[in-house]
Structures are given as structure tokens and as C-alpha cells.
């Protein structure tokens, strides 16, 4: 594949004209750190947007920033930190998980994949923070949607479609998004040795309390053992973790209250400041599963289904590794090697129609063979196909990345 490095928007417009005229597919990517998610895209020409960088507007008191799509998320985060602000959805960094380097991902990438970290249960998802998008559709038309203000219901919210569409509907060149204050303190209450069956009910008790828990995760002992924080790895037990944020006095008060709430459930510990932050990065980035190539699934499901779901998986694949985030609403499952479909049938059957399973990591052969994204019912896929046709009628943008081109064409 020939890759053109884009440095200004006009180059994209011209490339799109060329692609349309000759019906050439284009691989659209930022740093390529998430190129391993989705069906393999094979085109002769690619566009690399990682050179399209820069913060165009940042107004801390208005809680808003606008930046070009190729700007690195890590750079945005450093800049926000200077004003004691942050991206509240905790953008995860799957670089190392997918065999790449850390901190390579771009803004366009994180929003196009709509990836959110542990804070998602309270702070909302990446798409919830996306206020406006400028870019091009597959019609080679410049387009914009949304705005720079927090509250906007003017016309359809096409930002929602751009988020999570993996560059198959439009090429985002500039993104405007909401930023929020960084809490003064973050703390994490740890409860050791909680069995799987009790994990979600206990997290739910926390999340249903008045203590405003910002994140809730549960790691079985073998996953906790891979964390380099002594408090997590040391005891050799499973760990349930509840995160609290806020100004000093409030964080302290809540921490005490949560410890009281969990008294009698097992041994307790606390992570403060740096340890707390690095623990939640470990969870958000699914770092426990970095460093190998086994098929890795990310499942969003009703939290109360988490334990029966895992039981169903372990029943058929005892060597599957897993942990819970989002209070049980997010289950990571790493399948053993050797399953013909990477465990796709197993995880999707175990969902029993509630939720969805995405293959986050799998060999190119596997990603070409199975559906990395949850297959949709026919009536919905018909709408998806027409949406794709409305944005990109010639299938030139990341053709086949989410769904096979032929399947989409057949349903228009």
C-alpha cells in the first residue's frame, strides 16, 4: 500500500476526488495504533493523518478544545494538565495491547473508535464528549456537524455517527470536544479476595451508594498478579477496586465512608495519587493482556450478567482469562489459542442477545474470517447500509473495515 502523509485539508479533498473518479479504496488512519481492530482493509492507497496536527482552540473556562485529527492524545492530555483539566472519559491506550508503542494514538483515532476507559460509567463515553466535527464525507464534500457549545440540538447529531465508525463514514480533520476539571485528589479503595459471584453485586452496592464512585473494577488473582503495583499484586488475591475523586476533604470523607460500607466483606486497602492513577491506566488499557497475540474480546453487557457470562465462557474454555471493568458492564476476555473462530461463537452465544462483543485483538486471518464487530439484525443492518451509502456511496473510506462491502451494498 502506498501511504500519503497528509499535512493540509485540501490534500484530502483532492485525494477523495481521485478515489471517487477511479473507485479506489482509501485506508484512512492516524498513527495506525488501532489498525489491528476490525476487518483487514486492503487498498492500494492510504492516507496518514498523523501529520495534521495542532490545537486550534482551547478555552479552559468554557471547558472546550478544538484540535486537528492527527494530534496525539498524549499531547492533548499534557496540555490539559497544565490547566488542571483532562479528558474525563479516560481515553485508553491500546498501543501496547496491539503490539505497538504507548502514547502513539491520535485524537481522530480515539474518537473514530469511540474508546473510553474505566471512568466511562460516570463520566460518559468518548462520543459523549465530542461536540463538533469537521472533515470530508466519502462524497469528497467538506462537511461539519455539531458546534463548540455543550448544549446543542440543532439538526441531527452526526457527531454520534462519526464516533465509533472507524473512518468508514467520513474523514474527520478537526474535532471539538468537551474537557473537564482534573479532580484535586483521586483515591481507590481495594477489597481483596472477592469471588466472581460477589464482585458485581458489591460493585453495584458501591455504584448505588451516595459516594459518587468514578470507576469500579474487579480483577481475579491471576490478573492482579500481572500488575506492577505492590498493593495489587502482592496479596496474591482477587481485587475489587472503587475509585473516588474530588477535592481533598471530600475524597477523604468518601474513602472512609466506602471502607465503612465494605467493612466485614474482607481485607481493605487504599491507593492514593500516583498509585491510584497508574492502577486505573492498567485497567483502562487492559495492560494485563499486553505482550501476546491471543484473541482478545471486549464485551459490553448488562452488569448483572457478568458472572453468569463468565461462567458460561469458562465452562467451554477453562483457560480463558478475564476481568471486569465498568462495575461489571465491561468484560475483557482473552481466549486461548487454537479456537478456529477465536472464540467468537462462544462469547456471542454467552451474551444471549444482551450486549455486544468486539474482537480487539486477533490475527489478520481471524479478522478476515469472523465478524470482529457484533453482527447486527437485518433491519438494523439495512439502516447501517443506507447510512454508509449516504456518506460514502462508492465505499472508498476504509472499505470493509466494519462490515463487508458486498454485504452493505446488497442491503442498500
Amino acid at each position, binding site marked *: 500500500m502506498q501511504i500519503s502523509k497528509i499535512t493540509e485539508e485540501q490534500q484530502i479533498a483532492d485525494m477523495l476526488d481521485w478515489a471517487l473518479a477511479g473507485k479506489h479504496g482509501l485506508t484512512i488512519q492516524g498513527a495506525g495504533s488501532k489498525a489491528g481492530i476490525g476487518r483487514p482493509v486492503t487498498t492500494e492507497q492510504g492516507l496518514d493523518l498523523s501529520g495534521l496536527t495542532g490545537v486550534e482552540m482551547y478555552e479552559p473556562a468554557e471547558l472546550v478544545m478544538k484540535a486537528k485529527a492527527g494530534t496525539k492524545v498524549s499531547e492533548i492530555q499534557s496540555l490539559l494538565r497544565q490547566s488542571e483539566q483532562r479528558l474525563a472519559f479516560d481515553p485508553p491506550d491500546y498501543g501496547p495491547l496491539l503490539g505497538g508503542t504507548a502514547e502513539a494514538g491520535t485524537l481522530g483515532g480515539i474518537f473514530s473508535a469511540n474508546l473510553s476507559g474505566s471512568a466511562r460509567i460516570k463520566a460518559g463515553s468518548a462520543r459523549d464528549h465530542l461536540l463538533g466535527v469537521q472533515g470530508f464525507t466519502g462524497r469528497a464534500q467538506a462537511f461539519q456537524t455539531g458546534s463548540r*457549545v455543550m448544549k446543542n440540538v*440543532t439538526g441531527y447529531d452526526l457527531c454520534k455517527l462519526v464516533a465509533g465508525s472507524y473512518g468508514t463514514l467520513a474523514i474527520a480533520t478537526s474535532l471539538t470536544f468537551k474537557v473537564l476539571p482534573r479532580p484535586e485528589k483521586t483515591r481507590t479503595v481495594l477489597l481483596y479476595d472477592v469471588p466472581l459471584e460477589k464482585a458485581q453485586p458489591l460493585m453495584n452496592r458501591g455504584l448505588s451508594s*451516595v459516594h459518587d464512585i468514578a470507576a469500579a473494577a474487579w480483577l481475579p488473582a491471576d490478573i492482579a498478579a500481572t500488575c506492577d503495583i505492590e498493593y495489587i499484586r502482592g496479596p496474591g488475591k482477587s481485587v475489587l477496586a472503587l475509585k473516588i475523586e474530588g477535592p481533598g476533604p471530600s475524597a477523604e470523607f468518601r474513602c472512609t465512608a466506602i471502607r465503612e460500607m465494605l467493612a466485614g466483606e474482607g481485607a481493605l486497602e487504599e491507593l492514593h495519587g500516583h498509585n491510584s492513577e497508574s492502577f486505573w491506566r492498567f485497567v483502562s488499557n487492559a495492560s494485563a493482556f499486553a505482550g501476546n497475540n491471543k484473541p482478545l474480546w471486549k464485551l*459490553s453487557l448488562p*452488569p448483572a450478567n457478568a458472572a453468569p457470562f463468565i461462567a458460561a465462557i469458562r465452562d467451554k474454555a477453562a483457560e480463558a482469562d478475564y476481568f471486569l471493568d*465498568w462495575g461489571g458492564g465491561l468484560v475483557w476476555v482473552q481466549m486461548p489459542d487454537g479456537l478456529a473462530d477465536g472464540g467468537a461463537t462462544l462469547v456471542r452465544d454467552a451474551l444471549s442477545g444482551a450486549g455486544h462483543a468486539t474482537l480487539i485483538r486477533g490475527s489478520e486471518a481471524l479478522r478476515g474470517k469472523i465478524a470482529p464487530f457484533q453482527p447486527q439484525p437485518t433491519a438494523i443492518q439495512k439502516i447501517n447500509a443506507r447510512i454508509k451509502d*449516504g456518506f460514502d456511496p462508492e465505499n472508498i473510506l476504509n472499505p470493509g473495515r466494519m462490515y463487508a462491502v458486498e454485504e452493505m451494498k446488497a442491503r442498500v
Partner: protein
Amino acid sequence: MLMPKPNADVLAKRDALVAGLRRIVANPEGVIDDKDDLRAFECDGLSAYRQLPMIAVLPSTVREISDILKYCQAEGVNVVPRGAGTSLSGGALPLADGVLLGLGKFNKILEIDYDNRCVVAQPGVTNLAITDAVKGDGFYYAPDPSSQIACSIGGNVAENSGGVHCLKYGLTTHNLLGIEMVTMDGEIIRLGGKHLDAEGYDLLGVMTGSEGLLGVITEVTVRILRSPEHISAQLIGFPSSEQAGDCVGKIIGAGIIPAGMEMMDRYAIHAAEEFCHAGYPLDVEALLIIELDGPEVEIAHYQTQIDAIAKDCGATVSRISETEEERMTFWAGRKAAFPAVGRISPDYMCMDGTIPRSQLPKVLKRMNELSKQYGLRVANVFHAGDGNLHPLILFDANNPGELEKCEAFGADILKLCVEVGGVLTGEHGVGIEKRDLMGEMFSEEDLKQQQRLKCAFDPGGRLNPGKVFPVLHRCAELGKMHVHNGELPFPDIPRF
């Protein structure tokens, strides 16, 4: 306000359509064709515009909705969905040749699921009824539009409703987990559920705020939150709106996101105070109501900071609610601002632009100039935290020409919002009210791209036509492609 010309062929077969719909709807009173009975549906919350529907139907089951839509699709009849009819932008305004589809019979809460912290409800359940159903157990549903006692949750999804607490807790879209809906061709589909995030294209995301143009919502799943342990409100008065606006920016800049942050101008303060004696100071130009929630220690911590910031910004009055009753009194004035203004003027029109907060002084100044120019008074209430303005233009519809003058004034205010980097509507929707102003904010191509989304859901354009988009394009026309040249551009840009 021009609506699409009624289709004479459809009007001519009205009796046959009534009979056809009666075959679908089991309830003998579920199909309404009597002119007097149809009167109940002639307008929504934007009562300046009225139109009798050709027929109204009140189905009781999702199957009936599906069959009604299939039937209307086959007969070439337009359909306007309606929840509680509280829209302030005319989203549920009937069409002369259309079937009005009322969802009032869908008024049951189907499931309260504390294990997954969500409620499943039929679309006609009111916003407040969801909170009422769970508050005994210490939970609530966060979005609280001021019409929450009457507005339906299905309508909230269609309009992406907000409220005074959305600065901290988000709009409907941030609290919605799933829906069941019926498309115009009668397909019943489920989007989302009790889990987070869409897989594939985020159809749930675009359905939210789609104003009844994409599908008919038949079930809603929303997340519920635990009610905060303490809530406290504070009134802060300023000698000028600029100082109040400055204070809002500095509070947020200091890292504080209050649960609510409202602002009222002098005119609104006086109207509200006369109406319900909330104890507002009358010698200030602008009043902030700031609500904090959480543990007492956090509230106290933030209140100390806010006091210092307010003083620094020139506040002349500051009062913290001592009791829950007092807190409710502080809010009573703000929540009654619309009826309070309604009492001092025969008619008023409520606008709904959002602006970048820093532009507030400029916008208020220009609005005062426009007020003089049009000779119409305007009162301002303002969701200060998120920049959502609600100017209330006072007029008397009995004076010939005054409604038109008010419309022109309102349009100028919204154009001004767009000019300073804001938007036409923050939470009330486009409907018919702002339809013809869409071109102020979007290019022709942007509007076409939005309409292509409409085509994906409703290729025949039967659902709620005449709303949101100033020009109706046929889907076939929108689908056409214009290809330019075929040369590989930029031989000079680096390739690898």
C-alpha cells in the same frame, strides 16, 4: 410558517383511511376523525401555530403502531408522532393531510432494575414519573426539563431534553441506554439495552434529538442515579450581567462543576419575585442560583471557594439555603419564570439559543438594542453553566403584526447566537420554529448530509415532514454523486 402543501389525493380518501385505521386499532376510541375531538391535538407547546390533523390515532400496542406505519406507508400518508405535546418548537404540530400518532396510551413503567441501575418505560411515561418510581429507594432520573411533570420520556428522547442539572449530569443522550422503535416501514428494532455504548454505527445516538423524523419510539431504557446525600443552593446577586457572567466562568475555571448554575436578568427577577415571592433581591441586575450536591464537607469546601470568587467579581448579595424548604423556594422563582412572565404579558415566546459563555455581555447588549428596535420587551433566564439562553420575548398576539414582529426579533436573537459561535437551539429543538433558520448555521451540503440520514431511516419521507429542514429533497436526488477528475493528486506529498 409555511407547511408542505396538503396532498389533495390523500385528503380525498380520508374516509377510507379512517376505516382502514379502525381495522388496525382495537380500541374503538383509538381512531379520531371528529373535528371537535381533533381540536385537542391541534398544537403542542408552541401554541402560536395550530393545525388540525386529518386523523388522530391512539394505538395501545407496539404491533398496532407497526401496522399503522405500514398502512400509512402503503397509502402514501404522512405521520406525525406525538408524546405529551409539550414541545416548544412545534415538533408535534399536526399536518392537514397527516395522521397524528399519539403515544399517550403507552404510559407504563415496565421494569425497575436496581441490579443494572436502570428503568425500562413505555414512551408516554412522564419524565417525573420515572424519578417518582424510584425515589423511595433513593434513586432519581437526572435530566429534568422544566416541563418534567408533563413531558413524556419518549418525547425527551426525540428532543434530547436537558434541564437545569445537565451541566453536571448530562442531557437525555448521556442518560439513555436503549430504545425500542418502529421504522416507517413497520420494522420493530431495538437499539442498545441495559449495556453501554453502541456497536456499529450509533443509531441510538442519532435517534436522540431526531425530533420524530426517523422512527417512532416505543420503549425507553434509562439509567438512574443515586440521589445525592445533601443538596444546597446559593443566591448571588450582581450589579451587572457582565459581572455575573464573569463569576460563572471563574467558578468553572477553578475546577468546580456545580449541579446547576442558573442566571436571571433584572426583568426576570422582578417578574418571578412578584409571582411567587422567592425572596430574590430586587436591587441587582443579575442573579445566579448555584446548586451544589454531594457530602456536606464537599459542599462546604466549594461554597467557600465560590464565595471568594463571587466577592472578587463584585457580588453584592449572597445567601445560602439553610433548609430544604428554602432551597426549594430559591428554585421556585426560577422554575416559575415562564408563567411569571406570562402573567405580565398577554403572550410570550421563549427562545433557546446557546452561546459560548464568554460572549454573554456582547449578546445581552445587542439583545437590549434589538428590544428597543422592535419595541418588544425581553426577559432573560439562562442556563449559565452551559451557555443556554432563554430570552422570553413579550408580545400581544391581538395586536395586528405583533406576532410577526416577535418572530423577526426571535430570529435576530438566534442569528446573533450563531454569529458569536453558538447554535440555534440548545434543548427545545428545531421543529418548525427554527426550521427556516437552519441555513444560518449549516451549509447546503451539511443540511443535505443530515437529510441523507433521514433517507436511511425513512426513504419515503413520511415521518414528520416539514419539520427541521427548510428544503425537502427527495432521497434519490440526495444520493446523486458528482465526480470531478481522475488524476492522482499531489505527486509531491511524501509517500511510503
